[in-house]
């Protein structure tokens, strides 16, 4: 007898009131019991963070979550969230996680989860919209030769000099997107990560990949600035993180 032959041990009978349903959805109870709940938590007292996840790059799930959050942003703040700009960065980050992050084995042998390749988080709090896409893949450094032209990597590595190689790989991807060398039809997704901030007008993009952490800050008045850090630990994956400040209504 297998587990699937056993009677379902627990079934949730949905509360009629929305708040407890949102709480149960938020803490993942429906996933544990295997019951279906399509509701997206949105009460402020239930959630700051909203999350979703997926195994492919189909746009419906992250897109619907983004629309819900954007509606709230736009009802509460004078500065609107430009959906098309945010979608450009978000969809490319998800596509990168699906298409590249698991294309090579991680050094510890972890090959990824069968049902989940990426996680997406959004938060609206204290006048800042935050969005992140994460994966547990092999990181920028392992796949950089798949996504960027070899000559570009060699030239960039020489200019980058000594330092954290994960930072170098992240920054090479950013620089390739920015300089638009157009040597290959792929590798443009990193440019889309920056365009989220540029279109919004100001904000920060953080990219953490294995042991490296690059931050890119932008304002229309001052342009782009970046910093590089060694994390000191290996996070065994990649996080692409945007922070967009919003003017109050």
């Amino acid at each position: 007898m297998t587990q699937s032959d056993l009677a379902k041990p627990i079934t949730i009978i949905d509360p009629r009131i929305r708040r407890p349903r949102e709480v149960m959805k938020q803490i993942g109870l429906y996933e544990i019991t295997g019951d279906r709940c399509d509701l997206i938590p949105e009460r402020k007292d239930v959630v700051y963070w909203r999350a979703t996840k997926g195994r492919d790059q189909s746009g419906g799930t992250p897109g619907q979550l983004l629309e819900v959050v954007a509606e709230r942003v736009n009802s509460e703040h004078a500065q609107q969230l430009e959906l098309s700009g945010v979608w450009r960065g978000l969809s490319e980050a998800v596509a990168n996680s699906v298409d590249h992050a698991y294309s090579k084995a991680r050094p510890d042998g972890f090959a990824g989860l069968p049902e989940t390749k990426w996680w997406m988080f959004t938060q609206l709090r204290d006048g800042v919209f935050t969005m992140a896409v994460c994966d547990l893949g092999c990181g920028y450094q392992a796949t950089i030769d798949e996504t960027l032209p070899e000559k570009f990597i060699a030239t960039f590595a020489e200019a980058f000099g000594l330092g954290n190689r994960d930072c170098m790989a992240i920054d090479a991807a950013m620089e390739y997107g920015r300089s638009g060398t157009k040597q290959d039809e792929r590798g443009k997704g990193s440019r889309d990560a920056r365009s989220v901030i540029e279109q919004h007008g100001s904000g920060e993009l953080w990219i953490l990949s294995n042991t490296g952490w690059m931050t890119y800050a932008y304002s229309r008045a001052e342009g782009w600035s970046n910093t590089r850090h060694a994390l000191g630990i290996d996070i065994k994956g990649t996080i692409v993180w945007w922070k967009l400040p919003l003017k109050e209504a």
Partner: protein
Amino acid sequence: MIMVSVANNFTRFPSGRYKRNGETSGEGFREKFLEGPLQRGEHVTVDLDGTVGYGSSFLEEAFGGVVRSLRLKADYVLSLLTIKSTDPELVNEVRQYIVEASEKLS
């Protein structure tokens, strides 16, 4: 003349490059709506409005990809294809992908 609205006929959430990685991809759109008409020499108008937005992978694979998959010249594709959008930068971006893909073929 064939009219295609990405939002109404395909998806409001276009995302990603390859069909193997998801059903809302640029490759999927290209195969379903662009390759047949362009192969037959028919005019196609693609309306980009109404979606949540576009990433470059989707656009490049849909429009640059049709140049590669059918091995067409940019002039030929641009003579048959009309791109409609309230965002002129998006129209220029699509044209750029078509031209770049054609240049790489020659």
